[in-house]
């Protein structure tokens, strides 16, 4: 077991390094000079060279990468070009806000997804099952940013019961556990929850049908075990598959929240990324993407490890 865990963690390291290389190279993909926002108009070549040396852009790429990643693992992602503040102090609160939104969406989406999936799986082939399948296809297909707009139209414009923008009173940037903040959370969380709800309902349904077909489940029923105790077995056997999909969905939510955050002006990473793109604030862009993708890699690792704990068969593969 320990050996497997160690191997799995070791396998993740090269991926993490690869991800950081891609993040590093992103800046060099950008058309024009990455320093164009820093270098003043009409600067003499000497000044340009001086700035390049100051930012380390005169060194070969591999050296630049090593310097960058060395500072990054120490929490130094450079300075924002727009605000002249450390990137970390901009990204950290945004990540927290995105996390709050993603968590709320996860609770909603996973709850509904599992519930619907179980109902459909147990009644497969019936009208209820068809209805649930239709709902889940809708959930998977709907553009969530558009759903956000629809929710705003219904609940903010027509009914006027929920706020459409921001995170709290007066453009607050930090989340407080009070009624005002929670009310701001409802609509974006619902818009974001639809996709995971649809995907999880589908996979729970499929897995439950699969498990119910197994011989040992037939045996359990045959020996007279009450359905609620059989249910425990079903859940146990469906858990690893569903867990893997849930982990992936949670990770995708962190990265995919950019669109919903833009619709609702939620001050998270998506909002930060969006403004960084249009002000060409490359350090912010790079830092946000690095932090988010590292979260993604880590969550995938945790899911893998949890899966192997739950289902020892996976370890051998």
């Amino acid at each position: 077991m320990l050996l497997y865990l160690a191997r799995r963690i070791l396998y993740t390291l090269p991926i993490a390094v690869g991800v950081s290389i891609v993040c590093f190279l992103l800046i060099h993909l950008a058309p024009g000079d990455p320093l164009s926002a820093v270098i003043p108009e009409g600067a003499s070549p000497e000044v340009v060279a001086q700035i390049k040396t100051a930012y380390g852009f005169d060194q070969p790429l591999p050296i630049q990468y090593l310097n960058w990643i060395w500072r990054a693992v120490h929490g130094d992602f450079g300075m924002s070009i727009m605000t002249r503040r450390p990137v970390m102090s901009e990204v950290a609160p945004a990540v927290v806000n995105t996390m709050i939104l993603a968590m709320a969406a996860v609770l909603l989406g996973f709850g509904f997804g599992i519930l619907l999936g179980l109902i459909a799986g147990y009644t497969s082939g019936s009208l209820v099952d068809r209805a649930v399948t239709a709902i889940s296809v809708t959930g998977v297909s709907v553009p969530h940013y558009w759903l956000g707009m629809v929710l705003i139209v219904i609940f903010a414009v027509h009914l006027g019961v929920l706020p459409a923008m921001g995170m709290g009173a007066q453009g607050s940037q930090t989340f407080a556990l009070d009624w005002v903040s929670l009310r701001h959370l409802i609509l974006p969380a619902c818009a974001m929850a639809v996709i995971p709800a649809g995907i999880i309902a589908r996979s729970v349904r499929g897995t439950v049908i699969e498990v119910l077909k197994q011989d040992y489940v037939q045996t359990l029923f045959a020996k007279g075990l009450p359905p609620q105790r059989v249910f425990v077995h079903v859940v146990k056997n469906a858990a690893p598959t569903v867990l893997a999909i849930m982990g992936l969905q949670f990770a995708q939510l962190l990265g995919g929240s950019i669109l919903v955050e833009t619709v609702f002006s939620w001050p998270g990473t998506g909002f930060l990324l969006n403004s960084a793109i249009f002000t060409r604030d490359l350090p912010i862009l790079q830092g946000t993407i690095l932090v988010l993708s590292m979260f993604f890699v880590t969550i995938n690792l945790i899911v893998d490890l949890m899966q192997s704990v739950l289902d020892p068969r996976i370890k051998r593969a």
Partner: protein
Amino acid sequence: MTATTATTITIEAPPKGRRPISRSFWQTAWRRLSRDPVALVCGGILLLILLAAIFAPLIAPHDPYRTSMARRLLPIGDARHWLGTDELGRDLLSRLIYGGRMSLFMGFAPVVLATLIGGTLGIVAGYCGGAINMAIMRVTDVFYAFPSVLLAVAISGVLGAGLVNSLVSLTLVFTPPLARIAESVTTQIRNQDYVEAARATGASGWRIVFGHVLSNVTGPILIYASSMISVAIVIASGLSFLGLGVSPPNAEWGLMLNTLRQSIYVAPVNAILPGVMIFITSMTMNLISDSLRASMDVKV
């Protein structure tokens, strides 16, 4: 017990006048698909949207780019503009019809490109194995390790807005999963006895790839790619929605959603209309993909 009773075996004569039907895999799949009511209805709707987009100049009632300050944000059901007008007084119905051109293209093109690139990479990796496999698959793993929307936004954001840049970023997003599927199927096929036999009888590498590997990889790849199209339409429109896709005044559903968003309090129904098109297209594509999967009876 029944084992002791004599069983009579009757051999039925083959039905006269009709040769026993044998169908190939693709014929069976097509037969099932053409009898699936969901696939037929969805295919019909998609075809309608596609035809409307192709023949947009013939169908559209108005010029999609003609603005009119006097006729801004007219409601749905207007006598001249059936689906109303947008924030610059342009006819919404015409813009939705024209918008299908760009939106459908951005849904299909990246997936087709990714299928070709990812499929080739996966087959090469799976067939060659060893160091080549390692090199190709580890690089795809790295790109697979990004959340898909984030990767698309990051690349488009860095390269700048535009049709070609969105195409590049979306292709890059969809290539790794397709390469993974092609690689795993190819690796499985490569170790089958019949491929070994083909190799033993002197079949060339090309012959094995085109004769055996490709015919096995096509099904799973096709199913996965078809399910990616709806994702591509949603993400591509999402990029335009963020202002990273095509630039105004082009008609594109995501971009229309973006510009109409400013008018959400004034004309809410008009503002959400372009999203309905994205939703319908992505939904029909998802249902077609499900039917395709059922018709081929493949688990991906």
